[in-house]
């Protein structure tokens, strides 16, 4: 047979591509459940990092440490529960949907150690970036953070996820009020004292994108954080502000 004829070449390439596509489609379908389980575990481990909970078995640790996982709307009212037994969490795709959604359902993870974790999700330089922020009992002060990204530049933007000192800089910072909830910039360019951290040198766009993302999501959660922050939970014995908290509904004349 003449393997150089046009007909042969065309038929050969069509058959080859169909076979390869079938093999890949089959493999993707077959491996999908395992991959999804891994992604979920990874998400939970990031949430646990933000809640400063450690453990070997991620799912069991999560079930042990979580007190409640709820969905709230933009006004801060609870709309639904997430199944704790099933370790139900909102993955990056779910978070992405909430940004444009009119009726938002924003996940809040409340842990037994008094830390409340909220997520964020936005566009970085090359792909999506996301993160989890753990708040102390006052729902203002950041206890720990954990950021992730799809494909930021290794050694520059990727530092948001793998540079420990960047995450450590968030500890003790507070979410601000008004227009600027959180800033990521160099100190000279920051307008607030305690509501921001330094940006990463050489990763300006990723830093700015993360700042924008945090602002957007802290905005989504603003009502929830304000409503629930003043109510002190028994678990936060380390928090010294309990006795000083004024009733939230003082009206200025």
């Amino acid at each position, binding site marked *: 047979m003449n393997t*150089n004829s046009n007909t042969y*070449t065309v038929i050969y390439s069509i058959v080859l591509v169909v076979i390869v596509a079938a*093999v890949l489609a089959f493999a993707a379908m077959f*491996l999908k459940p395992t991959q999804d389980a891994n992604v979920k575990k990874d998400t939970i481990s990031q949430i646990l990092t933000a809640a400063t909970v450690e453990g070997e078995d991620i799912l069991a640790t999560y079930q042990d440490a979580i007190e409640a996982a709820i969905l709230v709307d933009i006004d801060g009212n609870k709309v639904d529960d997430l199944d704790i037994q099933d370790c139900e969490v909102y993955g990056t795709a779910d978070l992405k949907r909430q940004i444009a959604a009119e009726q938002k359902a924003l996940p809040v993870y409340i842990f037994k150690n008094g830390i409340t974790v909220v997520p964020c999700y936005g566009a970085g330089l090359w792909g999506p970036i996301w993160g989890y922020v753990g708040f102390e009992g006052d729902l203002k002060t950041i206890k720990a953070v954990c950021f992730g990204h799809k494909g930021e530049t290794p050694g520059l933007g990727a530092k948001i996820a793998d540079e420990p000192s960047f995450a450590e800089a968030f500890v003790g910072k507070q979410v601000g009020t008004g227009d600027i909830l959180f800033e990521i910039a160099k100190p000279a360019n920051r307008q607030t004292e305690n509501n921001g951290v330094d940006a990463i040198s050489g990763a300006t766009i990723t830093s700015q994108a993360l700042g924008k993302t945090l602002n957007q999501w802290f905005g989504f959660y603003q009502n929830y954080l304000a409503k629930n922050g003043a109510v002190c939970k028994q678990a936060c014995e380390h928090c010294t502000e309990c006795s000083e908290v004024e009733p939230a509904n003082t009206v200025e004349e």
Partner: protein
Amino acid sequence: MGNIKETFLNPIFKGNPISVLVLGICSSLAVTVQLKGAFVMGLSVIIVTGVSSLICSLLRNTIPNRIRIIVQLVVVAMMVILVDQVLKAYAYSVSKTLSVYIGLIITNCIVMGRIEAFALGNKPFASLMDGLGNGLGYAMILVIVAFFRELLGSGTLFGFQIIPQAVYDFGYMNNGLMILPPMALIILGCVIWVQRSIQKDLQEK
């Protein structure tokens, strides 16, 4: 059979794809910070080179000459995606560290080079051995480089602490340069140097 053995063993030392043919340098610089990553990357390349050489060799008499590079590319791409998917399912943390580099195996000159130079002109079994041998040669260099980089850069091997705390207390410090890609190039240079001083026929006059 002696010939097949030679086909398998030659690329491991005498005709090593990295240190002699200087192919696949980019990925060997990128994934050798940790032994674990280098090990998995090496294993992935062994599988990709071996199986795609085998498939291309089986198809070699049917492939239309004008689109042979495209056919090779499709076969290699399929293998790379399969390996990537399997890693994502069964070795998620490693797959996260290696990120894009698994996908970039497709651009590794060793794979296409061996198919074009060997598999298209030889029997399937010999091609499989040639592919495995080249993958193994690549993996070996990766592991050697990663061994020095992880030991001197992080004081660990496969993530286990090797250099005892007492040494750090005396003022020893991990070499930060070892973590960065330039040091991989320098170690690779040393490997090539050692090999050329053993194997005199590689030295240029």
